[in-house]
């Protein structure tokens, strides 16, 4: 009986200790942090993510005095093998957190599991985490973003006409989701015909070539939507080169400087944009909180901005 009482007491003491440790999370000070940001590829959209991350680092420094280093490591090509190599090399440096935009959730899984296995906090941004892995993800509703663009194009066309979709990287989940959701909206309108789907692999030059060829093949094409940031820029260039400004309508995606210029020039009507700076900012903030031992939300929605000629 005495032994039983002792063990119950010991369990209670240990339990209280654990509970106290949880209560104390985040109260210890740390002088410096190093976070790694791994985008899909070297791309201006991700430079904006990096800008947001650097801003978050400056805010933490200003408010707490802790030094925050952001290591931005981008694959030279949108290739999951190359991205995994960078991720694994980053794990070897034992950072305080890694934020990554997954090229392919299933293909990245093994390397992500290595990071989690080594107790490195991981945040996913602009993509969907692998099934079953409880990682904080930051992004927006990719489907809703695409639907906003597709509905706008349908409205501009009065519900009738031939349209085309420019896919980004087909194996990138967020690009694939956008393509599906564009198609869903167009399917709701019997007067809208999707006559072609291009693949630009998130590359402006490829998008321009694909768009030019598709417009040649479909002279009655009335409108375009895209699934990545590079796509609408290439499409806009192709529309200008073909002298079809105003004749072929474009509703773009995201807010790269070239996209904004296309809206100013009247080549594109508008853009349904993600907020890359905000994704970078909150990636660092969640990594920081996790590094302090504080639980972070499963999903943070950074929202969608609609950019038109009035507010560009």
């Amino acid at each position, binding site marked *: 009986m005495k032994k039983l009482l002792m063990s119950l007491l010991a369990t209670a003491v240990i339990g209280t200790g654990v509970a106290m440790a949880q209560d104390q999370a985040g109260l210890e000070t740390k002088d410096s942090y190093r976070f790694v940001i791994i985008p899909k590829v*070297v791309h201006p959209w991700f430079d904006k993510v990096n800008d947001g991350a650097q801003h978050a680092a400056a805010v933490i420094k200003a408010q707490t005095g802790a030094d925050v*280093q952001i*290591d*931005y*490591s*981008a*694959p*030279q*090509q*949108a*290739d*999951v*093998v*190359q991205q*995994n*190599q*960078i991720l*694994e*090399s*980053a*794990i*070897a*440096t*034992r950072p305080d957190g890694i934020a990554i935009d997954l090229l*392919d959730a*299933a*293909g990245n*899984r*093994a390397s992500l599991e290595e990071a989690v296995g*080594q107790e490195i906090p991981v945040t996913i941004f602009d993509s969907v985490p692998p099934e079953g892995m409880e990682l904080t993800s930051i992004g927006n509703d990719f489907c809703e973003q695409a639907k906003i663009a597709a509905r706008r194009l349908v409205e501009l066309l009065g519900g009738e006409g031939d349209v085309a979709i420019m*896919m980004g*990287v*087909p*194996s990138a989940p967020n690009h*694939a989701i956008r393509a599906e959701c564009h198609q869903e909206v167009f399917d709701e309108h019997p007067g809208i015909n999707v006559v072609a789907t291009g*693949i630009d692999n998130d590359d402006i030059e490829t998008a321009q070539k694909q768009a030019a060829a598709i417009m040649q093949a479909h002279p009655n094409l009335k409108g375009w939507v895209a699934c990545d940031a590079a796509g609408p820029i290439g499409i806009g260039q192709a529309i200008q080169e073909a002298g079809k400004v105003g004749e072929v309508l474009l509703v773009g995606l995201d807010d790269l400087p070239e996209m904004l210029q296309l809206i100013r020039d009247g080549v594109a009507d508008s853009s349904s944009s993600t907020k890359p700076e905000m994704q970078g900012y909150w990636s660092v903030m969640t990594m920081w909180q996790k590094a302090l031992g504080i639980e972070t939300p499963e999903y943070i929605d950074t929202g969608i901005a609609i950019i038109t000629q009035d507010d560009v």
Partner: protein
Amino acid sequence: MLRKLLTRLATNQLAGVFVAFLIIFAISASLSPYFLSSYNMSVVARSLAFVGLVTIGQSMLLILGELDLSLGVIGGLCGVIAGILMVNYGINPAVAMSMALAMGATLGFVNGALVTSLGLHSLVLTIGTAGIYGGVTLVLTKGVAITNIPAEIQFLGRGSLFGVPLPFVIMIAVLAIATFITFKTRFGRYMYAVGNNTAAAKMLGIKVNRVRVAIFTLAGLLSALAGILMVARLGTAQPSIGDTWVLPPIAAAVIGGVATTGGIGTPLGAIFGAAIIATIENIIVLFGVSPYWQGLVSGTIVVLAISFDSISRRYIRREDQ
């Protein structure tokens, strides 16, 4: 005595690239506290393994005076075929992988047969076949990865043997076989004879085209092996597998002392070249080099490594005279 030993080491064909690799390795180890960690060494070894397998095949082709630009794409296509056979058709993984390996050898054979029978330049021909094989990959996958690869084969890409990643162990075994073939067999001597002087090799009675087709076939087989191991590593068959295996194996072979004109070099030297590239790729991340500087930094290190090799060879020649 020491001078004699040093001269003997210096006159070895591999000395330049080996010393260049050692210098890069030592600098990396001294500048980054993470470089020598067991985890990081396994990361470098694993990344070297996949590109290393393609490098072995490409270096043997270069020794013949040939080049195959479709090897990376063959790796990707065979990985995808293995994935489709296992996932879509439920074929036993061992059988599916064997079929994919056979497909790799066949595609390599087709390249070799076209080069020899039509008298085409391998560089030009394989640009075309790379387009065809890459196109087939896209048609089969529609650009989307094949998921749900059976867990029982994933140990091939993710597992380790006494702490050494399994793909690296496989690559070393293949390298040992390739080295044996090139140095210890009649076929190996034929390779160098063909690479040095095709006309003379023909006059000696060597069946030049047979040697060429055999090496193209072997290179296709090794690329397929790399692709299948990568599928096992990723747990998905990505259509993009092999996209980055085109230029690095050629660069690795050249860094490793393989002459693009044929007849000179070894697969072992090419692997040292690949090891230099894998180390550079790793330290660029460890040092946190900006992605916009990475090309400049890695290119400079490669140029320095090649220059070091060239200067050391010139020094050796002068010593010999």
